């Protein structure tokens, strides 16, 4: 478990527009208990050293299918597959 429950991240890129725009800040709860379809999550890319922010499309047996809101400009679970639970950093609880 993360030592501190709340983290703030700065958003880059466009695939979560209009909900999140480049330069927005997201506040994430790292001690979240459960996530549901429609939640926005921060997670580690499976292969690259980068963090991503996407919206949960569906959950099946603990594996999350995440999509960008701006689907025409998004690389997401459609291209890199489902996200493992251990790769999820936090659930977004606020945007500024």
């Amino acid at each position: 478990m993360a030592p501190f429950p709340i983290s703030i991240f700065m958003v880059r890129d466009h695939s979560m527009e209009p909900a999140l725009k480049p330069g927005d800040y997201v506040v994430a709860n790292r001690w979240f208990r459960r996530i549901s379809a429609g939640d926005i999550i921060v997670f580690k890319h499976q292969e690259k050293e980068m963090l991503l922010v996407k919206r949960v499309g569906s959950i099946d047996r603990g594996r999350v299918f995440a999509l960008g809101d701006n689907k025409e400009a998004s690389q997401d679970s459609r291209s890199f597959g489902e996200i493992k639970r251990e790769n999820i950093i936090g659930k977004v609880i606020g945007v500024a």
Partner: protein
Amino acid sequence: MKTGIAKRIIGALDRVLHFEVVHAHCDIPCGIYDPHQAQVAAHTVLRMDMLIADLMKGVSPAADSNSRNKLVRYVAVKEQHAELVKHEVRVIWGDYAKPETADAKTHELVWSIMKAASKAKQDTDVESAMDLLAKVEQFAEWFWKTKNVQVVRAKAPGFPTEAEMVFPKV
């Protein structure tokens, strides 16, 4: 919470604490790159110039609406495919190329492809299209070399341009 005040406060904190970046990514390198599309588009530009040259032999476009119609269509397709060459090459250069694979010669080649594609739009000379095609084939050779894939140059099968194309030996 999405207010200007909250953002200003967090922004001020960010300047001190340097929050991590999360990508709402639209350009995760998927690893799927291929210069083939650019090569085919360059052949199309050449073919359009060849068709235009044929059309203009002994024909007065002003006197023949069918010829004028054909000319407009050839030019439109040439324009689209020259732009497609630029797009495809830019994507490979911008997203795939890395400092260890692209040297000054590669950057020069990409720059020259952009210029050659523009020239191929501006005129209807077969030579301009041939120049563009030659540069795009050089780019394809560079691309496959970065992947340690051998290439072979051969006439593009069935293409009426009868011009060479670089193919990966797989």
